[in-house]
């Protein structure tokens, strides 16, 4: 699994979150995607200038 997603790749963020057993929704005010279950709405993502990176231990490639 890729550790980072381009910050505009909403379909990939949703698809990845759906298949991830570690998705935990962040505070709703920090959600960035319309689809609730998305890496972009996960508590374990960290935004960088161009991407969202998964910070969950064990999720790195």
């Amino acid at each position, binding site marked *: 699994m890729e550790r980072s997603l381009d910050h505009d790749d909403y379909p990939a963020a949703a698809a990845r979150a759906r298949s991830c057993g570690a998705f935990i929704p962040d505070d709703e005010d920090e959600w960035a995607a319309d689809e609730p279950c998305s890496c972009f709405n996960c508590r374990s993502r*960290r935004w960088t200038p161009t991407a969202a990176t998964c910070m969950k231990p064990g999720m790195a490639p």
Partner: protein
Amino acid sequence: MKLLICIDDTDNLESRGTGELAELMIGQIETAGWGRCSAITRHQLLVHDDIPYTSHNSSMCFHVELSDPACLDALMRQARHILETESAEGSDPGLAIAVLAPSARSERLVEFGHRAKQEVLTKEAAYALAVEQNVHLSEHGGTGQGVIGALAGIGLRMSGSDGRVKGRLNLGAPGAVLAVAELLAHPQIDAVQDLGGDPLPPGQHILLGDKVKTVWLDHQAVLLVYRGTDGRWKTCERQQLRTY
């Protein structure tokens, strides 16, 4: 007497967010009878490799209308206490409190806020400006780096046009249709505008989306709407509000 309070960098990936801490602060201020608080605005700051933010680098700001100026010291003590006892392990909390003049707008603070969205700033610069502008600025753990975002949030809220309002509005089920006049009757909506900034007429009908939020524009909580491909006006979705 009016205050602006802003906090930043109070969380880690496991803890509650900075917005929830701001809500806790508001609850204690109002319960103590020290004043009435406004909505909280979330201000997005620069995301950069040289900035040690947790996950998104935003600060949270709100107004307080003090019931008595004599409450100020107690309020400031409590705000500091909350940051010291409720901030998450590994965070770098910062607190900024500005006492506002009646027509308060400091161009220097606004400029600092805008710069914090575009460049890496230092604690030293933040403290120097806070002293110059007579803003209380304090750090409450870790590196205290949160003072930069806290002061920037004061400037951005003061600018009148930055950020999203924390929380979502309960206006009805998704798919419900309300007139603009009905939306404007809601206490947390000051204006209804399209994405170009034009206000919609009171009789225009708006289709509610899944999650309805306002943004902070021209010192107001503004509900942004767009015309869908079917010609109907709809409340903006989260992805459309992401840049605010």
